[in-house]
Every structure is written in C-alpha cells, then in structure tokens.
C-alpha cells in the first residue's frame, strides 16, 4: 500500500539542543501507528513539525506525495491533517458547539458580506454546518452539552471534544498527542474503543503518541520508539515489548542487569 505520510531525515535543533535527529517513518494509508519514548524524546516536536508549527531544520515531510515543509499550519490542515494536543487546547470561553463549528470554518463557504448582510446563502450554509457539527457531537455523545462552555466540561469530555474537533476538519490523517494522559483505567478502555471506532467510521489513518504502554500495545499495529531524538526501534507491539534497547530506554541498563 502506498504511504499517506512519509518523513525522511527530519531534524530539528533548538539552538544547540538536538530535539529530533534524522527521523524517518512511512505510514501506510489506513494504518494505526504509535510513537513512544521517554519524556523529552522529541515526539511532540515531530507532531509540531508535521503540522507546521515549527519549521524543521532539515528533512522533508511528504503527505500524499506533497512536501509540507514551508507551508503555513492552516494550509497543512486544509490538505487533510487534524491533530489534538498533549495539554488540551480547546477554545475555553466558547461553547462546545462553537468549538466544533470553528473546525468547519474552511468549509463554511460564505463570505464576510454574506454574514454581515445575513443573506439567504448565509442561513443555508450556517444551518448545514451547524447540523454537521451537531452530528459530530452526537457521535461523541456530547450533544447535550452543546451550549455549555468548553471549559466547564469534565476532563474526559474535554478530551473527547478535542478529538471531535480534530475530526471536524475532515482529516485523512489524524495525529493524537497522548490522548490517554490523565485518564483513569475505565476511561482509557473507552478511549481505546473510541479510537478503533473513529478509524473505521471515518476511514482514517491514525498516528498517535502515547505514554501508557497498555494503550499503545493494545491498539497500534506498528510502533516506533524514540529516545533522545532518535529512532531506537520499530516493529509490531510484540517485537517492541521484547526489544532490549526499548527496555533499556524505559527502565535503564542497571535495572535490567540486576533483574537477571
């Protein structure tokens, strides 16, 4: 299968700090791929480079054959990449519905004049996009909350809303940055089901960063492991679990030796 996302030789320096070095990955269409590694390994930096928030120092990011390097973040989103953030970044003072409707902005299809003059075209498009947003909220079981402020939702629902919002940009590739962070075991189980569900329902490719081994091992088909900005292993969950370099990165060498 042809890759939807292909990253070659991606490198990022923050001054003298080497955050990511020579990162490569190929993600086939429809795959569910995980990226793991200890804190500070450079995982989120990779997401920030894919979505155009940081320009890479070197390397290229090919999305459906097109190089994304040098594009503005909104242009990258318009090409079909949605993402969530490690520390939730909703629009806190806007309603749940408006959070999702903002994601539909690029498909709104009416102009400033339509809005100010309230033309029939405005009403037609506004109704359509509101109904679309509401149907998204229903999928995520948030429809009863649509008129509440996003900041008033409990943590788990904020996470769900952020995923709903990322899906509303109608992406082909969804980047999830630690979706299970701060969740209890029951919520994590729900989340894993949800991720499977959205991939099948929206025919997506999912690339996710996760800290909790249970999540990554449970849902990812292939896993890439990073440490200190470099890839140290890649393979199926089974292979990763038994890879000595991964164990070393997570637990440290001394502990492994003593265990023997």
């Amino acid at each position, binding site marked *: 299968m042809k890759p939807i996302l292909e990253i070659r030789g991606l490198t990022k320096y923050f001054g003298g700090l080497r955050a990511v070095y020579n990162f490569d990955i190929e993600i086939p269409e429809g795959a569910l791929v995980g990226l793991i590694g200890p804190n500070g390994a450079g995982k989120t930096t990779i997401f920030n480079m894919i979505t155009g928030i940081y320009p890479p120092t070197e390397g290229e990011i090919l999305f459906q054959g097109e190089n994304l390097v040098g594009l503005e973040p909104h242009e990258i989103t318009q090409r079909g990449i949605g993402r969530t953030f490690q520390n939730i970044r909703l629009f806190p003072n806007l309603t749940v519905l*408006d959070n999702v409707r903002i994601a539909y*902005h690029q498909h709104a299809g009416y102009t400033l004049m339509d809005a100010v003059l309230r033309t029939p075209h405005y009403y037609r498009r506004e109704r359509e996009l509101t109904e679309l947003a509401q149907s998204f909220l229903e999928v995520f079981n948030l429809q009863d909350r649509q008129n509440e402020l996003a900041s008033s939702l409990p943590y788990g629902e904020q996470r769900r809303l952020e995923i709903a919002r990322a899906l509303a940009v109608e992406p082909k590739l969804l980047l999830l940055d630690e979706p299970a962070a701060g969740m209890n075991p029951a919520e994590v189980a729900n989340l894993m089901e949800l991720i499977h569900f959205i991939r099948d329902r929206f025919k997506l490719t999912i690339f996710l960063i996760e800290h909790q081994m249970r999540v990554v091992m449970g849902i990812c088909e292939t896993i890439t492991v990073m440490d200190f900005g470099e890839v140290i292993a890649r393979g199926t969950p089974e292979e990763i679990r038994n890879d000595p370099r991964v164990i070393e990165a997570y637990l440290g060498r001394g502990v492994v030796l003593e265990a023997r």
Partner: protein
Amino acid sequence: MVREGRFLGQSWRFWVGAFLVYLVFQVLFWLGDAEVPVIGAIFTTYIQDVIKYVCILAMVALGLNLIYGFNGQFSLGQWGFYAIGAYASADVTYRWYQNSDPSALIVLLVGEAVALGLFLLVPRWTRGLRLPEWQVLSLYLVMLVAGAAVGIGASTALSGPIGAFLRLWPEGLAMQVIFFLSVLEGGVLAAIISFLFGLPVLKLGGDYFGIATLGFGMIVKVLFDNADAIFPEMKGARGMVGIPRLTTWPWVYAFLVLTLVAMRNLIYSSEGRAILSVRESEIAAKVMGIDTTRYKTLSFVLGSLFAGLAGGLLAHYQAFLAPNMFHFIKSFDPLIIIVFGGLGSMTGTLAGTIFWAATLEGLRVLLPTGTEAWRLVIYPVALLVIMLLRPDGLLGKREWGFLRERKWWLKPEVVEEKAKAQVQEARGS
C-alpha cells in the same frame, strides 16, 4: 424559527423599536430646545451633546473591543485611526462648505475605490508567488500610491463639472450627501491605513503589538501637528476651524445602530468565530485550518473602520479639530471603557460608555457648583471598586437583547422539548 429577522438578521420589531427610541430622543431634544419646563431643564444643549458624544465614543470603543476583546490583540492605536477619520472627513466638507470645492471628495472617493479594487484583485495573482513580507507590503504601498494618483488625476479633471453639478442641488441636500460620503471616506481611509500598518506589525504578539500601535498613535498626532505644511486648512497645532456642524442626532444614532448590527452579525458567523478562536488559542486555531494572520488583519481593519467613521462624526459634531484632542493619553479612554464593560461584550461596551459619560459629564451637572472637580476623584474610585467587584468587567462576555446570539438553527423538536420541560418545571414548583 427558520432564520433570524428579515432585514440584516433583525426582526421588524427590532427596527420599529430602534426607530421609536430614535423618535423619543428626538422629541425630547426638540422639547429641550423649545425650553419646555422640566424637560427643557434636563435636555439642555449640553446634555444633548453628551448623548451624541456617547454614541460616537461607543463606536470607537466597539471597534477597539473587536480588536482587543474579541480578537485578543492589545491595541493602543485606536485613537490614531479616530484622528485620521476625523481629519479626512473634515477636509472634504470644509472645502465644499467654504469654497464649494469638491476636490477632496473626489480624490478620496476615486482614490479609495481604485486602491480597494487593486487590494482585492492583485493578491489573487500574487498569492501563488509566495513573496517575502516586505515585498508584499511594498506592493500594497504601490497600489495605494496608484490609487492616490488616479484620485488626484480624477479630481483635477472632474472637480469643475462635478462642482457645478452639485451646486444645482438644493444647498442643504448637497451638504448632507457630501457629509455622509465624507464620513464613509474617513472610515475607509482609516481602514486602508490600518491594513498597511497591520501587515508588518500584527505578527508581533501581545504587549509588543500594543507598544507598536501606541507609536502609531503618536506619529499620527505629530503628523497633524504639522499638517498645515501640505493642507493649510488643517492649520496644524492651532486646530482646524470652520468645519460645518452637521452631526445631528439621526446621523449618530443611525451610524451606531448599524455598527452594532453589523458587528453582531459578524461575531455570530463563521468569520466571527474564526476571529474569536484567535483570541482563545492561536495555535489551536491554526491547527483547525484558520488563517490567523487573515483574521487578525480583518478585525484590526474593521475596528479601525469603526474608529474612522466615528472620527468623521466627531469632526462635524465639534466643528473644531485639534491634534491635542488625539493625544495618546486619550487613547486610554476606549480601553478603559471596554475593559470596564467587559472584553468581548458589545452590550458591556455600550454600558461602559454610558458609565464613562455619566460619571465624567453627568457628575458635572449633579455635583453642587464649586465641587465639580471631585468627579475626577469619584470616577477613578468607582472604576477601582467595580473592577475589584467584577474583575471580568461589568458584563464579562455576556450579551443582552438583540446583541445575543439567537439559536435559530436549533431543530424545532429540541425547542419544543425545552418549552415542555419549562412548563413542567413551572407546574412542579
């Protein structure tokens, strides 16, 4: 409800109500002028002027709230755009009023039309080139100069015949039409200048943008201090006199109502939500596919447009303009008003403006003679106390009345269910 009201998203009830409010004040003003007992004592010329000034200042503050309260860009330059609108508009009517000379009217009308046309058309071809920023800015400056050149050319060619044509009209009508056009021209000029200023400066975030705009306000004041070098009628620091006094109650009221309706319609649309998302989280907005630069520019330009329009009204309200009126210290007035009323609340801005006028001007009337200076003590103390009690401003982000978002898209059955639930609740209790 399939949609909101029929005209500009407002119901006929709203328009009738707005007209009635106009009428009530108009009648009160007439009675005040006729010195009818009681009403004549309350609605003196002075109070009438304060009410008109509240409407003008509310427009400036609404513009600033769009920039700072809704879009999150801290700007201190609003007063500069106010000044530009005022002087541009005053120059147009001054020339006609004093010399029956429509040259300024034509220069601005043609120049702005050409410049706006170029601004809209040229980027369609140049967008694909991905020019560096300074080249984009130079390109826009060239377009502006081209517009000005065409405007001046049109004016030298057409001033004679158009002037002769306008002199055929009844004198009052020609003056009113020129006044209306001059206010629009002042507003559009302020908008164009804010666009060119915002292009390089808007990418500065937070306080840095605030300082840059403060600098802009100071530059504008110094320019008008020395404007007599090019425009002798502006008389530089001595102040411009001889502007016709044309800002009547119907004009200010109509401009304020239309500003409010336009801003409300903007905020409750996809464009408005894009503006809000920039304030809420710029990074998240970008990742949602929103061109944040575009929406920062849009709200800055529209906010300046409102300030420019208000400036045109101010010039013909006072019939006198001096650069000192646009000293940067004064630019804190709209800032105080919007923070006090609630950043991100149009209702709050109106309430804030009324509070501002009521304490600073109203107390002048209410306090016993000889103690008027105490209002400058009462005003800051009241500000302090209210900000301590309500840190988000009077209204926070809430809106009242016609400024609220109407949820007309709710499915009918949802509305029905809600109504049923309310009825049951009422019965239960």
